């Protein structure tokens, strides 16, 4: 496990903009999922997106790594319009951890090798051990994923995404499918990883308390529109 006593909340927000959206929107069959979303994600910050069910949180997240196509606006990754970046390259740069872990059949190590293998890279045993150690699964390399608990599977999912060395990590309600004990473990894990690796994250959560524990800034979505964005104090106590 990574050791850090530093809370993510205390991380200084860098001024460099890693990702910027401009009038980003998506509608399907006339139904607006997200509209006019303009915001920035700074390097090494954790931006939480909160809002009620159906407010467009996950829809917005899926637009950020282009799993869905915007029907308006675009996203800039370090100033480059992401439509100019090959989708497979973009998705390695912007990693995604989903609500359910969706592990591939096989061993934990095989899952970790999946991402690097897509660009023809081999992922060494040492790198696997280091990554598994980071997520608190030091000796799990040869375990079959079918035998993992929900919390363990989510840890493998996080490690698998990190194996691609993404510049931005998208977390889509990573603890909502877990029991309370696993939820606390995964949250602590994310706090440590984000802090120690100084990762830039966009976290979708319906849990405002979790947003307050993990994020440095928060964005509130309602009916696909950003209604507030700012520091935790500004937004959550507004």
């Amino acid at each position: 496990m990574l050791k850090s006593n530093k809370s993510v909340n205390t991380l200084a927000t860098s001024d460099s903009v890693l990702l910027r959206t401009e009038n980003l929107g998506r509608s399907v069959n006339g139904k607006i999922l997200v509209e006019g979303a303009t915001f920035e994600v700074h390097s090494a910050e954790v931006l939480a997106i909160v809002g009620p069910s159906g407010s467009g949180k996950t829809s917005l997240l899926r637009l950020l790594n282009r799993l869905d196509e915007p029907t308006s606006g675009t996203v800039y990754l370090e100033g480059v319009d992401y439509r100019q970046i090959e989708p497979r390259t973009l998705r390695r740069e912007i990693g995604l951890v989903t609500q359910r872990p969706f592990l591939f059949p096989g061993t934990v190590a095989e899952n970790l090798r999946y991402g690097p293998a897509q660009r023809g890279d081999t992922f060494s045993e040492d790198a696997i051990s280091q990554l598994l150690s980071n997520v608190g699964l030091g000796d799990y390399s040869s375990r079959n994923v079918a035998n993992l608990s929900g919390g363990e599977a989510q840890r493998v999912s996080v490690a698998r995404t990190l194996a691609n060395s993404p510049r931005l990590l998208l977390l889509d309600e990573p603890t909502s499918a877990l029991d309370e004990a696993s939820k606390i473990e995964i949250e602590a894990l994310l706090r440590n990883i984000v802090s120690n690796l100084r990762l830039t994250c966009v976290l979708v959560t319906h849990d405002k308390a979790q947003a307050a524990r993990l994020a440095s800034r928060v964005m509130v979505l309602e009916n696909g529109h950003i209604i507030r964005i700012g520091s935790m104090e500004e937004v959550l106590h507004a």
Partner: protein
Amino acid sequence: MLKHLFHDPLHLVFAQAVVAALAAVLVVLLARKRRIHLESEVLIAMLRGLLQIVAVGSILVLLLKSSRWNSAWLLMVMIVAAGATSARRARGIPGAFTVSTWAIAAGAGSVIAVMTWLGVIDSAITSLVPVGSMLIANAMNTNGLALNRIRADVLAHAGEIETALALGAEPGRSVSPYVQAAFESSLIPAIDSVRSLGIVWIPGLMAGMLLSGARPLYAAIYQFVVLAMILASSGLTSLISTLFIRARLFTSADQLIVQPGR
């Protein structure tokens, strides 16, 4: 029993059709009791099938006296109709009709052409059209099964597929387990037909040949020939169809098109 009631062969065959259809209707009613509603689908399919086969029978009467090339035109029309029918199993996948039609044309069409050229299928209209239609119909069924399976698997495993995409996988790789499973499962009926030939069933073609006075051994071997051709044309159709439908599941930006709830 019907033979005693109807002496005119035409009346007899219509009576046989009604009795057979009633058996199917009975099954529909039994299914309805279990709250499985197949009424409209089965009734429309039976009516449509009856009208189509009567129309084809009438056309064959006319074709018997025309040029052999007309059978090629008729088979082409059948291929397009087969493409349209099986493409319905791929609802929501853009271009399924085009893929299906070309796959059936390449799969069944090439087997029909090669086998006719080699003399395995007699080029006379009375032989080429019925045997060709059997190959096309089975290719259609196989293609429909493959597309139906791919669609169902993609819907059921959209999370896994998008996880692979999110890790930077090529779209083709992200769906390859489901495409392979669809190809394999689509061929089960054709393989089982050959495997159980003569033990579980005596196919219609052989029965027809026996009724029309052909030697049993000749009828039996020719039936095997037809089933082997069906297996070849169905397998080729499914192989081509699953290969090309894979690309249609994604946009040019590698986004999964077929998703639950869309």
